[in-house]
């Protein structure tokens, strides 16, 4: 009797998997520069920009995991600190003076530091107070927002569109931190928490190696 129930569910799952595979094959396209144009307006372009910039995703993931490992209070403060700081840094970069384009190794070095510090703290699982975690999230958010804004200005984006893009990025960061920090907070088994610590060590290790490349002038 169980077989008769098993088959339709399996067929449905297969259909779902097939549809997902077709969609996935059709979905990816060439991502052009950082100004991702989704055709849905600057807010969604900002969301698209975030998900196509691995140098933005990794520090945000590391900060979300760090906040989650430290508990609900750091999670709640980081939930607001990171998106708001990113938004503020971005707006400051858009409205501030038009700086010359920074050399690629310098940018790589800054990105490496933002990989290294939160990733290393996740790997070490240090008992940090909520204020320190939120402060770190704020600093990294401002730095990345500012760098993003500089890139947008160099690509010729208007300030209004840039602010809207940052709004999209901030919303995406809020969702990411909320989901990931909540997931990590809910973990009860030490093994599951350690898997996230291993992920943090990978992010930190990538940062160390990237720092080496930037120090010898390769981005």
């Amino acid at each position, binding site marked *: 009797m169980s077989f008769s129930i098993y088959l339709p569910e*399996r067929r449905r799952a297969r259909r779902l998997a097939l549809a997902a595979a077709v969609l996935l094959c059709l979905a990816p*396209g060439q991502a052009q520069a950082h100004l991702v144009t989704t055709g849905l307006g600057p807010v969604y372009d900002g969301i698209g920009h975030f998900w196509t*910039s691995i*140098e933005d995703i990794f520090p945000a993931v590391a900060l979300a995991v760090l906040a989650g490992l430290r508990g609900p209070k750091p999670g709640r403060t980081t939930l607001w600190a990171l998106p708001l700081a990113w938004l503020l840094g971005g707006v400051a970069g858009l409205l501030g003076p038009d700086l010359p384009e920074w050399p690629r190794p310098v940018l*790589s070095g800054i990105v490496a530091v933002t990989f290294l510090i939160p990733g290393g703290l996740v790997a070490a699982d240090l008992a940090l107070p909520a204020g320190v975690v939120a402060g770190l999230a704020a600093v990294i958010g401002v730095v990345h927002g500012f760098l993003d804004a500089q890139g947008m200005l160099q690509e010729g984006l208007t300030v209004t569109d840039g602010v809207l893009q940052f709004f999209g990025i901030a919303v995406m960061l809020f969702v990411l931190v909320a989901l990931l920090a909540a997931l990590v907070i809910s973990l009860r088994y030490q093994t599951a928490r350690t898997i996230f610590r*291993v992920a943090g060590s990978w992010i930190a290790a990538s940062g*160390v190696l990237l720092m080496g*490349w930037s120090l010898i002038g390769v*981005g």
Partner: protein
Amino acid sequence: MKASPTPSYSRLARLLWALAWLLLMTHAADAHIIKGEGGGFRSGFLHPWSGWDHIIAMVGVGIWGAQIGAPAIWLLPVIFPIVMSFGGLLGLLNVPLPFGEHSAEYGIAMSGLLLGVMVLGDVHPNRLAQWFFHRDSPEVAARKGKKLGYTLAAVMVGFFGLCHGYAHGRELPPGESGLYYSIGFVIATGTLHACGITLGLVHRWPMGQLALRLCGMAILCGGIYFLQDDIREFSQPAPAAAKTAAAPVAPHVLLHLPS
């Protein structure tokens, strides 16, 4: 009526899988911070799989960690990538190693050899470290040995990671992004550890323990091979340019005629 044997996946799990696939399948993104090509990820990811010396050491670390059990099963793979990347940093900056220019290659070969010994002997570092405190009472020796044992294992694995990173971390193909190369390299190394840990999970069964010891034997043999290969390669003097140049051969020699 029995319940359906079909596994019930949560919506969140499906969403996460779809998201992971989308991230993996996305084409190169020329983001504004790093304007390099995403091809670096592929090079970095494939690099650790290209040499058996690297593979046996990574898998060996995973197996040994699984043999020791918690917390080493996770402690060693957490330490290794960070120290390995630090080794890569030293290599990139051309910081000389203390025991000569080939010490990294010797260290890589020694990593296979020593990890092979550890896995073959199913050596627990705590028991090894307790020997240092054999004059103390058994309780004190056990307590001190536990602390020293994990430290010894971490230092040993960290040293091997340093050598591997020094030798392998600097081979970025021209025109590719250092960021993506670094991420790919670290993920591949971690994946090799995960392979070792997965293999090591059979340690709970007696036959599994025997199989792991055989794996240790294979790793040991690999380490010995790479060590003798390094000794043979680096002990030979570099051939002089004049000696290597082929001397013109006289026609009577070619034709086997008397001079």
